[in-house]
């Protein structure tokens, strides 16, 4: 790392952070002074939204200059990142970058760029977006830093294994693989041992790349902040149990950025604490995210990033909204397993238990529990062409939920590739489903 690199890093991020802070203050002022739209079915945006925007923009801004001065790791969304944070790595999540591309409607062109290079359309659209961005050099966030290390954990799918091998060959950097055996209920001790051993080997590689040893006190601090953020995130989600819900799953899909990308950071803890206070204020005032909430729904699977607004407005026209989702819940439900006093063992346990690494029966129980806890009238099961591990079993889940008196709709789409989504048919299904729910 050169002096010139350090200068570029501190100058670039310093000026950028100043600009972002100015934008946040301006947006906050506008939010306070702008007259709310009376025709909108939604309440005004959450007052912390400009802060969230600053937080996420700052993360990508840092990324732009990161490889000039810091070690960079690209990681999967469910990867155990605390040891990398403790070693001072800047972390980039290609899946989150994929979601940003999806929201900004850039998913299709980047998927096509990957397809032109020979990647099949049957591959996950996050992987295609990422590889397409890599090959074409196009990204809506300015620039992505080159990785010094790749960390791939198979607790979300097997696609990541092949995706990261492609990245390793492309960047010629070490790849750490954490293989998490599939579990049905709770992980047996030998599975935890197996993952812990891989983590220890991963730490050795990360130390070698970083050129320094891990400080156990720092690892404990990062793990404690991770736990704090995850607990706060869970409390944020649980506020939507209130009728009317002060926050919807559509809001949560955006607000989950920090818990995925900046788990273990002080700023993430501060942000969720402020968000929680805002939601409590809404509850005290009886303000719902939707002005007239009539139908409460649970969402299963990833969001349809490029149609979030359209879907949210379509539901709102019928007085419906999403009050919880298995997806946002996945980043909160494991808080109790995180033990800062034993970071490696607890990481092995935590990262074995995500919803996608467990049996479909567990997912069914989770959906049913959410439906009860959040007083939901029905469930939308997004059958995601790109995410097979999340979508497998949904036919049976729909039937079993219906048999238990919870209406469920199977909605075919894709989280990042709009070519696999038919607006008119989706709208027809959703409207028919809402007509079916007695109110």
């Amino acid at each position, binding site marked *: 790392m050169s002096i010139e690199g350090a200068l570029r890093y501190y100058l670039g991020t310093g000026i950028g952070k100043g600009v972002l802070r100015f934008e946040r203050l301006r947006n906050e002022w506008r939010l306070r002074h702008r007259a709310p739209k009376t025709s909108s079915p939604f309440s005004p945006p959450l007052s912390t939204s400009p802060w969230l925007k600053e937080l996420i923009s700052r993360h990508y801004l840092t990324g732009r200059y990161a490889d000039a001065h810091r070690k960079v790791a690209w990681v999967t969304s469910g990867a155990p990142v605390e040891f990398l944070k403790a070693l001072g790595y800047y972390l980039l999540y290609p899946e989150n970058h994929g979601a940003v591309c999806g929201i900004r409607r850039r998913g299709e062109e980047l998927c096509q760029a990957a397809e032109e290079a020979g990647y099949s359309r049957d591959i996950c659209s996050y992987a295609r977006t990422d590889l397409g961005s890599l090959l074409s050099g196009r990204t809506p966030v300015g620039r992505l830093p080159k990785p010094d290390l790749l960390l791939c954990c198979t607790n979300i799918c097997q696609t990541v294994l092949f995706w990261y091998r492609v990245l390793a060959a492309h960047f010629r950097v070490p790849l750490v693989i954490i293989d998490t055996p599939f579990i049905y209920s709770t992980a047996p001790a030998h599975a935890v041992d197996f993952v812990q051993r891989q983590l220890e080997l991963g730490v050795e590689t990360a130390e070698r790349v970083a050129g320094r040893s891990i400080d156990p006190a720092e690892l404990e601090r990062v793990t404690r902040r991770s736990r704090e953020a995850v607990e706060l995130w869970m409390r944020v989600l649980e506020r939507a149990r209130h009728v009317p819900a002060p926050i919807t799953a559509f809001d949560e899909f955006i607000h989950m950025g920090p818990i995925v990308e900046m788990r273990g950071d002080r700023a993430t803890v501060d942000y969720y604490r402020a968000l929680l206070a805002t939601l409590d204020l809404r509850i005290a005032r009886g303000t719902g995210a939707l002005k007239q909430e009539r139908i409460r729904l649970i969402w299963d699977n990833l969001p349809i990033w490029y149609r979030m607004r359209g879907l949210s407005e379509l539901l709102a026209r019928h007085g419906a909204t999403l009050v919880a989702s298995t997806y946002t819940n996945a980043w909160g439900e494991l808080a109790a397993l995180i033990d800062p006093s034993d970071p490696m063992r607890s990481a092995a346990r935590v990262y074995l238990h995500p919803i996608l690494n467990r049996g479909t029966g567990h997912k069914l129980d989770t959906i049913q529990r959410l439906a009860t806890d959040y007083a939901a009238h029905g469930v939308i099961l997004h059958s995601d062409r790109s995410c097979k591990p999340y979508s497998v079993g949904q*036919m049976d889940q729909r*039937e079993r939920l*219906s048999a238990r008196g919870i*209406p469920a709709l*199977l909605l*075919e789409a894709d989280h990042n590739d709009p070519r696999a989504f*038919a607006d*008119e*048919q989706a709208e*027809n*299904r959703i*409207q*028919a489903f809402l*007509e*079916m729910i*007695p109110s």
Partner: protein
Amino acid sequence: MNAAGIGVDAGSTVVKACAVTAAGSRIWQHVELTEPRLEEQARRIAALAREQAGAAPLVATGYGRKLVAGAERAITEITCHARGVFAELGSGGTVVDIGGQDSKVISVGADGSVRNFAMNDKCAAGTGRFLEVTAARLRLAVEEIGAMALAAAEEVPISSTCAVFAESEIVSLIARGAALEAIVRGLHRSLVARLASLVRSLGIVEPVALSGGVARNPAIAAFLAEALGCEVKLPEAPQLMGAYGAALLALD
């Protein structure tokens, strides 16, 4: 006439309209092919309904439901077909609606409400379009192929449920000298196989009834009954069930 409710079903292939009395009996109906300028067409048909049947609340349904000016409500075909068939047959059960562009299987409760439904995927398999495309390839009128399929002495299996693949399968069957009647019978069997799996995915609750324009094809009801192993009922005017249901919903 003294209509109490009007329903307009602006479908992808055909626009249907219907008016009912306060007691729910059909007193007026109108059917015409969907025109490219659907908005204008819907306005004209709504005016026609009011002129000929009397002014009454109007409910729109079908893919063009949002384009029907002056409609009190726009309700999906799923809810409307369920309501129409329920009123016609007097009981709940399973409604199989085969439309021009999509097919739906609807589970109807004892009170006429929709309990559950399943639709075809984003393709023409299992819909009227499948028959239109394949009949056109054989240079046959879509109205005559049902009777032809029933009368055929032989049948050749068509493995494709996809309209595009079925078309190329037909080309190779013709090249091999297969009889036209046998191909037509095979095509119907293929369409019904797709529908039957859609019905089974929802669970068969008898009675099973057909609705939608394609239900007028006699081979569909016969083959579906065979595939499901139960009787398949046919309303008097299957094509009108969506508009009829919409008109009944306008009474609420």
